């Protein structure tokens, strides 16, 4: 299985300012999450993979093809969804998607058929005959996704696909991304700031910070190994309850007014918590086991290398 992306000491400089500083690694995941604070070089990395910027040093291979020599072949196999608004005014949805399909080499008849199929698949029903300029924000994002997948690419690069969408729009977009990921071997690079979206779609995560590759981990593996801890929400006066719980030997962390995070030693049962609660007149509302979420992995990555917290 050739890696989706292979970086070999890749560095990129903008007029002297180093943006990517020697990235190396091979990423095989079916859906790779690309994370990092603002200005970490995520967009630059994506644009280097697309050949918008030549790498200053080192090399990058996409689906086994080198970015410097086979860029046209790469662009056949890639569907790119840019970050901010990107459409052509005074053009209907269907015509925009069809033209983009033809520009990727599909014959006109084939392009029209696939354009309609893609727009149907993404839920842009009758709006496809309207001018893209009149689309709502959610529909524009779907139109961008349509343009990215109409020519049937082997790899999808999505830059902030759910940015600015409302709750339903985000749910719809994530469903479609998961569906594309599971339709045989299409690989996805998802670049986003919303960690829950990345958690729901990706099985591998790459975290950049100030142009350096700080963390590269497999989410499934990470989930299994993490320490389990309990998150408890209570109602009523919790002062006495907290001290009693600590006496039981639980490691306690309070964040937010009513939310407690604690780690139970082997000897203590959940039921004991209820005993203590009943005795101290506190009602336990929410109680569930939690694992290190991507949020914690991300925060650890940031603190790892002279993070600023």
């Amino acid at each position: 299985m050739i890696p989706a992306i292979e970086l070999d000491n890749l560095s990129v400089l903008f007029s002297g300012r180093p943006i990517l500083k020697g990235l190396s690694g091979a990423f095989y995941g079916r859906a790779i999450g690309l994370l990092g604070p603002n200005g970490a070089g995520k967009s630059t990395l994506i644009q280097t993979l697309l050949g918008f910027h030549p790498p200053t040093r080192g090399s990058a291979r996409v689906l086994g093809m080198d970015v410097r020599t086979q860029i046209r072949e790469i662009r056949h196999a890639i569907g790119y969804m840019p970050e901010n608004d990107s459409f052509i005014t005074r053009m209907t949805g269907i015509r925009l998607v069809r033209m983009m399909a033809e520009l990727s080499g599909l014959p006109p008849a084939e392009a029209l058929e696939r354009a309609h199929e893609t727009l149907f698949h993404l839920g842009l029903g009758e709006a496809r005959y309207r001018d893209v300029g009149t689309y709502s924000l959610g529909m524009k994002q779907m139109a961008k996704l349509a343009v990215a997948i109409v020519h049937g690419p082997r790899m999808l690069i999505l830059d902030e696909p759910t940015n600015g969408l409302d709750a339903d729009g985000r749910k719809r977009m994530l469903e479609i991304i998961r569906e594309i990921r599971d339709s045989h071997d299409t690989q996805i690079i998802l670049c986003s700031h919303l960690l829950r979206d990345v958690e729901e779609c990706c099985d591998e995560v790459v975290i950049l910070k100030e142009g350096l590759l700080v963390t590269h981990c497999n989410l499934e593996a990470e989930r299994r190994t993490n320490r389990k801890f309990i998150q408890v929400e209570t109602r009523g006066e919790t002062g006495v309850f907290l001290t009693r719980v600590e006496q039981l030997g639980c490691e306690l962390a309070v964040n937010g007014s009513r939310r407690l995070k604690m780690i139970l030693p082997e000897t203590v049962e959940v039921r004991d918590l209820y005993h203590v609660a009943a005795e101290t007149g506190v009602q336990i509302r929410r109680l569930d086991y939690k694992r290190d979420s991507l949020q914690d992995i991300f925060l650890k990555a940031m603190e790892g290398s002279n993070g600023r917290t």
Partner: protein
Amino acid sequence: MTAEPNRIVFTDVSKFYGEVLGVNKINLKIGPGITSLVGPNGSGKTTLMNLMTGLIRPTRGEIEVLGTRTDAPETFYSMVGYCTQFDTFPKGVTGFGLIYSVLRLHGRTRREAEEQAWQAIEQVHMTDAAHRRVAAYSKGMRQRIKLALAVAHHPTVLVLDEPLNGLDPMARAESIALFEKLAEEGLFVIISSHILHEVDLMSDCVVMMSNGYVVAEGDIQEVREEMSEHPIGIRVRCDRPALLASRAFSENHVVEVRIEDDGAGVLLRSRSVDQLYALVNRVVLEEALKIEGVTPVDEDVHSVYSYLIGSNGAGRL
């Protein structure tokens, strides 16, 4: 018209852009603390915020923010800070230059303006990029500068239109902490956002909008309890779900009980949330159940949103 010095009051406010509906018949009283504005795109959130900050005038109705009207700019804007949704900046200006100039407009002396500008820039961790041109900033950095701009002159009312849009996870956490700190200092912080789990995390009170109408308003739990047509549900993962189910049926406030198909959990719905939790606490002690977890099924903003708005409001994307 009762002049309420400590509230943001909307009385019968409507705004139409020609015949396009902005917002319709809004009656709101917003108190200090974090109030979240939630609703699908185009539901009137931005219109409401523009009205509240005087950028646009209502077609009908009155708006009063802490007793002053929005059309007296010199006094009104010294207490209001607005971080807009527009991602546009004057050409050729640097981050620091913009905040400094606006503070000078606020009547600060040169030294004060410089000091406060730098203070605000530190708060959003933009110190190293402050002197570069805003045109060269990434989306997240522009967002931080807008945030700094809104808080630089220490307003008492802070209106933020999707302030976390484009920020990285670190910055989101820091911004939420900043908002909570400001809210504790007694500021009115009004935030519009789509990320419901963040809204759930940080807001004391929620205003839910759909198609230009306020659909619900108030504390999440109260709003949820008021929705009698959707009884409160909790999901209990334990070793003997059948026992808990039978004990639950004996109580009259329980409306629905369902054993989960994996046989290791039970879903209980009841008209009164307190009695339901009391029941669970009691049964765990008496029957020595081995509890895996007790989680409310639809108490958070997500479910309230989908009940109130998801079904009827946002048919489209």
